[in-house]
């Protein structure tokens, strides 16, 4: 492409022929104010605030709009001559004559030294009719939902016929770029729910799937993306300096051959909604422990502040232990982590607010290294610990409104008294439970789940990270509720087991496995579906079933199923068992 040499405020620059002065000035770091400029569209020069003085050979000069004045070789531009300032001032004053003194105009007026606009200023109307919204909707979004209406003094921006537009895709681009705030997207800006994962911005179409995602790369959410609705926009591709945006990318499956698998699928958080007595989902200030964690995140929706739904700081907080754990109606087991994180919560509350904290527990289980010390520290911080499981949470009556909006009812078993504790916020320390798809998932790996849904290890003491399937290891809370140190320890053990397996280069098999004697197998296929480990396959050439001894675990269910007695369970053969029967009854 041909280049043009131009001078802006005495600085020389070589730019592409056909580009505009504003871009050149920007690349030199020279600030030119704009209102209607959007870099990914054809410039329109509607607001005329970007005007500059152009000088050509032969000594002529004139005022031009920088955004759409094309460069040419030898062009000289001045951006801050009295003539430029005067022109900008006049243009701004004319904009202000029809528009309320919105902040962006006032700021400009201040910069240009306007103390009192020469003409009147608008009162309610906030549009400067720059058309940026209309052009974005047309050129970038491609929805064509906005247009200018009427003429002259009544000119305005609206949807066609001023009716709700069917073409509008609610992308919000018009509102985002409107310089004066004339267009608003009210619903989208509403309070973002505390439980949601972090996005780059509310309903952003490009977002990180979740924090600490690996790889930590944003992805396009197709449902929210303008491009996938209209085929337009593609601004992100223009913005990205590395050309990373790939609209054609689809989730694809890759097959990876591995020698070992570590399953670390974690847990689900117990949903306390069915426990009506605690009013979760009914009272906005009854929140789950996970929501409280999100609230505490400095990068979270409340910026790390502990606030109630109305934004005020709570005066008292109750933390209810064992929600869903140690409960015959839900999970009988202890979730092991709740006592300690509940204590951490009270520490956080004490640190960030002046609220009273009540811990309502069944038993305080601070069993780990340094845990009991932390408990003592919490007590020193003045946290109220009450032994007794909360019975219910109800809204407080008028009388107690002074102290809190909610009442927690419980029996304090240490003093043997029924208590009503007024609080503003209730945190439910919810149980850890097995992932809801654990059973289905386990079937894929031929590992079993226990009655509670956790994956079962090969042996609780001697093989705590192995499973019944060779080469499949367990780590973390998918095997049972556990805290981070335990999960990390188990993860390390699982990794070491996997490494050991791979480093050996060969696999040691249990000698107890099933063998099919070809001479007796007639290929009835009775056994083919018996094997939970899919170790039995059918040899079509020989018309017999075959056991893959590497997959077989030696349970013997196919042996009992074989009507022809063609399968032998090594170490548990029919002969051995019949001999035992004979022996013990002899």
């Amino acid at each position, binding site marked *: 492409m041909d280049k043009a040499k131009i001078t802006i405020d005495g600085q020389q620059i070589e730019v592409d022929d056909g580009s505009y002065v504003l871009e050149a000035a920007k690349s030199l770091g020279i600030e030119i104010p704009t209102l209607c400029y959007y870099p990914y569209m054809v410039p329109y020069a509607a607001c005329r605030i970007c005007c500059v003085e152009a000088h050509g050979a032969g000594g002529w000069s004139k005022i031009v709009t920088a955004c759409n004045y094309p460069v040419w070789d030898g062009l000289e531009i001045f951006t801050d001559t009295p003539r430029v300032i005067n022109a900008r001032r006049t243009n701004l004053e004319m904009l202000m004559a029809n528009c309320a003194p919105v902040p962006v105009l006032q700021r400009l007026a201040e910069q240009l030294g306007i103390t009192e606009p020469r003409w009147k200023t608008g009162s309610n109307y906030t549009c400067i009719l720059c058309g940026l919204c209309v052009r974005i909707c047309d050129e970038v979004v491609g929805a064509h939902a906005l247009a200018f209406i009427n003429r002259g003094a009544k000119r305005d921006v609206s949807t066609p016929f001023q009716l709700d537009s069917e073409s509008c895709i609610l992308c919000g681009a018009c509102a985002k770029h409107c310089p004066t705030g004339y267009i608003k997207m009210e619903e989208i800006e509403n309070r973002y729910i505390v439980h949601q994962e972090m996005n780059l911005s509310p309903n952003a179409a490009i977002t990180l799937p979740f924090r600490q995602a690996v790889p930590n790369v944003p992805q396009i959410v197709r449902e929210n993306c303008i491009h996938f609705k209209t085929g337009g926009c593609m601004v992100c591709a223009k913005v990205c300096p590395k050309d990373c945006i790939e609209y054609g990318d689809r989730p694809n499956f890759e097959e990876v051959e591995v020698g070992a698998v570590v399953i670390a699928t974690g847990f689900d958080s117990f949903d306390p909604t069915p426990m009506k007595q605690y009013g979760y989902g009914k009272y906005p200030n009854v929140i789950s422990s996970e929501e409280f964690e999100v609230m505490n995140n400095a990068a979270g929706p409340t910026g790390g502040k502990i606030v109630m739904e109305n934004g005020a700081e709570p005066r008292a907080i109750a933390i209810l232990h064992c929600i869903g754990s140690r409960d015959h109606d839900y999970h009988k087991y202890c979730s092991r982590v709740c006592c300690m994180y509940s204590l951490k919560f009270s520490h956080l509350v004490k640190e960030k607010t002046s609220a009273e904290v009540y811990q309502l527990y069944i038993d305080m289980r601070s069993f780990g290294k340094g845990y009991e010390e932390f408990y003592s520290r919490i007590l020193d911080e003045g946290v109220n610990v009450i032994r007794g499981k909360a019975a219910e949470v109800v809204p407080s009556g008028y009388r107690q409104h002074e102290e809190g909006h909610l009442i927690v009812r419980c029996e304090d078993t240490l003093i043997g008294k029924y208590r009503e504790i007024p609080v503003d916020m209730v945190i439910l320390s919810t149980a850890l439970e097995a992932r809801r798809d654990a059973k289905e998932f386990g079937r894929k790996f031929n590992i079993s789940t226990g009655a509670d849904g956790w994956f079962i290890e090969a042996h609780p003491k001697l093989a705590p990270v192995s499973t019944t399937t060779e080469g499949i290891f367990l780590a973390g809370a998918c095997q049972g509720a556990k805290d981070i140190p335990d999960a990390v320890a188990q993860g390390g053990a699982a990794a070491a087991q996997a490494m050991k397996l791979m480093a050996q280069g060969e696999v040691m098999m249990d000698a107890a496995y099933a063998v099919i004697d070809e001479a007796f*197998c007639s*290929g*009835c*296929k*009775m056994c083919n579906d018996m094997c939970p480990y899919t170790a039995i396959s059918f040899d079509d050439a020989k018309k017999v079933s075959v056991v893959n001894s590497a997959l077989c675990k030696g349970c013997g269910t196919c042996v*009992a199923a074989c*009507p022809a007695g063609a399968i032998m369970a090594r170490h548990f053969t029919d002969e051995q068992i019949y001999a035992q029967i004979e022996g013990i009854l002899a």
Partner: protein
Amino acid sequence: MAKPKLAIYWAASCGGCDIAILDIEGKILEVADFFDLVFWPCAMDFKYDDVRKMQDKEITLTLFNGAIRSDENYEIAKLLREKSVVLCAFGSCASEGCIPGLANFTDKQTIMDYVYKTSPSLEPGNDVVPQTNVKVPEGTLHIPNLWNTVRTLPQVVDVDYIIPGCPPQSNQIAAVIDAVVDILKNGKPLPPKGTVLGASDKCCCDECKRQRNVKKIKKFIRPFEIVTDPEICLMEQGMVCLGPATRSGCGAKCVAAGVPCRGCYGLPSNIRDQGASMASALASVIDSIDEAEVERILDTVADPLGTFYRFSLPSSMLRRVQQ
């Protein structure tokens, strides 16, 4: 050199085995030519006394068909054992009990009462029950006593070989005869004692032409309830087919005709109880993990005991019903 002597006997049997021997067609002439037929009550008139007068081990080969369920059956079984070099349990009755063995589901008294007293086909008023000894003017008539429990031949005397089937298929009989002739003529070694002749080690599915897939059964049906698919395994279609638990050798003729195998060739050599093996396999492929539903599905098996033990009750683990 004298011809080798051949004896064929029927104990508690239907005579089908004898007919199967005749079914070898032209080969029967070779048999008659090669052997000296010394005893075949079904076909020719011999007397037990003729046999009693023989030397021990005088008969080269005895094909014994029929189960043992009377004093007479037992006596002749012992007699033929004494007089034969090789005693062969011929057919399902002799080797495993077969249809006469189904008497073990009940007892002698019930059978006698039904046959001579309550059967609807009896002449009204005639309730004469045969006695073992009846005095008539000419002397005492003696009828052999019927046993309460049907036995197989190997349970009462030492048996050298077994030829299974109800009846053994003629082509298999012909093959066995060829082998015997070969052994006798050319001095080939005998197969080890206890060998099952005229059958293979695999099960009936080996000879079945139907296409077999993984089986999952929600309901058992009987052959008359559906029009069977001629290509697909009958068990997959929901029928109780004993083929998988039955020794092959018959040529899978029943299943080819769309009738599930009933198990007449007996159990394959690796299993101990044909009925239990079949029951285990059948329970394995029931497609349910709900106890009540499993019971409902099992209810659809018509006469499970009679189906699983149709041919093998007297040789099964429990041998007979207990009261």
